[in-house]
């Protein structure tokens, strides 16, 4: 399997996917956890 970081496009897509995942984790879990 090719490493997505070997291309600029793969790097940007990986960053966008990570942003969505972290947004979900922070907004749905961490902030609500603190009440």
């Amino acid at each position, binding site marked *: 399997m090719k490493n997505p*970081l070997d291309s*600029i496009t793969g*790097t940007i897509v990986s*960053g*966008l996917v990570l*942003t969505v995942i972290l947004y979900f984790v922070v907004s749905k879990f*961490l902030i609500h956890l603190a009440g």
Partner: protein
Amino acid sequence: MELILVRWLHILAGITWIGLLYYFNVVQAPSVAQAKAQGVNGEIIPKVIAPRALLWFRWAALVTWLTGAYYLYAKWGLGNAFMLKGTAATIGTGAWLGTIMLFNVWVLIWPNQKKVLGLVEATDEQKAKGARIAFLASRTNTMLSIPMVFFMVSGAHMPGLGS
């Protein structure tokens, strides 16, 4: 007043750091690869441009982190941010990503680039390995910069993530 100066410096240093990171990834690395493929032989990048760019890059990274850490300490409490407590979780997530990126700059990119550029002694094998490590660390930082900037600027604008 003091905090706005710190925030101003943080953003100026951050622009310098991430601007150079994007230069390395979207201009310099592809250009060097293209030049090699075309048989163009030039020494200006490894001998002159890259060392100067890396100088500004690594010190801008440190200034960005230090000013950011002071700002977090004064405004949110460093512990609250890095422990991702409550609404500080937003900026804290950005701070963690920035901290990982700083680690990559000083521990993975710079020491390996010194080998690649011939600033320290290294065998051809060590240079090849160092080039790959520095490349992947740089690409990792480019990837991390996308959510990092999102969480740095999202505080007051995102529903449920407000400051």
